[in-house]
């Protein structure tokens, strides 16, 4: 029981790391980035490439791979999303186009990775990060990578939440989400803020990807898609664009899935996320944690 609780917290942390970037992009820029999962796997792939032959140590690898993931997402923003935002004034058309671009990008990134890895699962060698398990009495225990994931998730979640709430850039992001035109009139370079946001979103996916690459036995291209679908449930339950909502619902969903796997019919695990999406959208479409909604002018 205690062990399962630990498992759920670790899994929730993984989901938090993964879904925050997605929430950021959707909440502020209306980009439902289906390439987020592919970018996440891409970071794992970079980790694998950096560590498999050389002896690059963990921290530089983490930084390089996260930056690479951020760069890929930034490239997507600069090549496609920005153009779409400027040229398709109808918001609905822009959203659809950006969604489609991200589907295409997911395919492209996935194909490149699977070619480079000969379609097989990949993982950094054990030497990249040696995993130890600490016993907490009885059969209960936790490994160092699990601790690292939980700590990283807490740091990232708090930093992002506070950053969005309290900093100049955070205010610009929130204003941009509500009304880009006025935001720009106030002297905010919305193109730069959007680019920075997408870079951050990608880098967060990258951070999650590196940690997971080490934590899991092996990643493959499909791994990203699985997390993506769960992350959608997290955004819907938490309320799109709400950082706190995303964090809380990541742990809730982790708890729910862990409970189903541990004590219920585990083959229905995938159903948990999909069912939550449906139920939430029907009962409370704005999500659990959405604050007062203001009609956009």
């Amino acid at each position: 029981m205690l062990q399962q609780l630990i498992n759920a917290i670790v899994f929730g942390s993984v989901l938090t790391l993964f879904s925050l970037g997605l929430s950021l992009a959707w909440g502020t820029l209306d980009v439902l980035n289906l390439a987020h999962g592919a970018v996440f796997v891409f970071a794992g792939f970079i980790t694998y490439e950096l560590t498999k032959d050389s002896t690059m140590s963990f921290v530089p690898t983490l930084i390089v791979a996260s930056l690479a993931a951020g760069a890929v997402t930034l490239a997507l923003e600069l090549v496609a999303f920005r153009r779409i935002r400027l040229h398709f004034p109808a918001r609905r058309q822009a959203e659809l186009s950006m969604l489609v671009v991200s589907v295409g990008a997911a395919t492209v990134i996935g194909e490149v990775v699977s070619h480079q890895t000969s379609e097989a699962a990949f993982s950094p060698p054990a030497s990249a990060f040696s995993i130890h398990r600490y016993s907490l009495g009885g059969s209960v225990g936790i490994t160092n990578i699990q601790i690292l994931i939980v700590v990283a998730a807490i740091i990232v979640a708090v930093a992002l939440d506070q950053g969005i709430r309290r900093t100049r850039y955070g205010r610009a992001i929130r204003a941009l989400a509500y009304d880009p035109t006025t935001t720009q009139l106030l002297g905010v370079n919305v193109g730069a803020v959007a680019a920075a946001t997408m870079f951050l979103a990608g880098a967060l996916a990258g951070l999650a990807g590196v940690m997971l690459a080490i934590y899991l036995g092996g990643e493959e291209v499909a791994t990203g898609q699985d997390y993506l679908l769960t992350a959608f449930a997290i955004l819907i339950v938490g309320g799109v664009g709400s950082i706190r909502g995303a964090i809380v619902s990541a742990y809730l969903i982790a708890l729910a899935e862990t409970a189903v796997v541990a004590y219920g019919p585990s083959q229905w695990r995938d159903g948990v996320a999909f069912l939550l999406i449906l139920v939430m959208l029907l009962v409370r479409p704005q999500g659990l944690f959405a604050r007062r909604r203001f009609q956009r002018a």
Partner: protein
Amino acid sequence: MARWALAPLALIAGLAIAACGSSSGSSESGGSKEASSGTIPVTFVADQTGLVSYVGEKVIAGMKLAVEEINSSGELGKRKIVLSIANSNSDTATATTQMAAAVKSNAVAVFGPALSAEALATAPLAQRAKVVDIGTLSEDTGFLPIGNYIYRLTCSQLRYDPLIVEHVAKLGLKSTKIVYASDNPTLSEETTEHMVPELEKAGVKVQGTVGVPSTTTEFSSLATKLESGNPESIGLMVVGAANPDLITALRHSGYKGVIWGEQSATAGALVPAGELANGFFYAVDYTESLPYESSKKFTELFKQKHPKEIPYGYDANGYDAMKAFAKAVSLEGSGPVTRESVLKGMQKEAASGGFEGASGKTIFVGPEHRDIAVPGVLVEWKDGAEHIVKLGTPGLEQQQ
């Protein structure tokens, strides 16, 4: 005039025009195709991309290796096999389209795709066109009954259950739990219908089976669940990255018992788990160190062609499927090769006791002798390579 009504009509007209245009190039369709001047055209509808592309690419490599060997050895006289690859994209509709194009072409035989849905949907097309279809990985029980032109060369887990059960019992393991991919047709049926009763019969207590969707990657909660009750062994009937992921999760959560699995752990799937996967055993068609002469020959050929890679079962399957075909052709003499002659050749080959392939002595089993069976081998994974534990014998499983 409503212009919108014209559009569908224009489409029909367009189809008709296209029909006239493209018909000139294609050859006559019908059951008795004949290859022109010494070439033997065959088509492999392969999963080059998509879900099982990791399998498809390897089968293709093995098949190409066999074609090169057969064409250069003069095994078929002056006649040369010409292999076309058609990508099924691991998708039923694309697979059927490709298969339809293949049976329409002058191919004298076709090789079918791996996913069971693809295999089941494409086989009737081959059967109707009366062209021999050698399925490469399809384990579905409904596959062979589709018709007398349908063959398969498949590393079937069913065939290897006895090897694994016997080894689990031999190691003195008293109990086991099995986790299986609940959305994989073959593995879920395999686990509940065959593995569990056979293990029980061999005196191994099956403490439980757990199904998980094959999309799962984070297994810590499942590992905790599996460990409870301290089973002496845990069996993994899962595909792809789930193998190394489960091994990693189990070992990191402190499980010390034996972990065994099935053939999808081959082809380097365990590499990501590193040394945590040491001691993991499973059964396959082929492994690099098989002692048979024909296996050594394949291994050598493969190494020459791909010096940096390790040959695995999927490569061997592709090679063997092509070898089976070539043997059938050679048994029908040196005349022109037709679809009919390929079928006759296959039947003769089945009656004459099969052939020697990458996996060793290979025979035709099943009620109509259309199930091509290799001896198989039980291997243990250790330090990044498969090591032979026990050699199998062809046709080990119960006759279907």
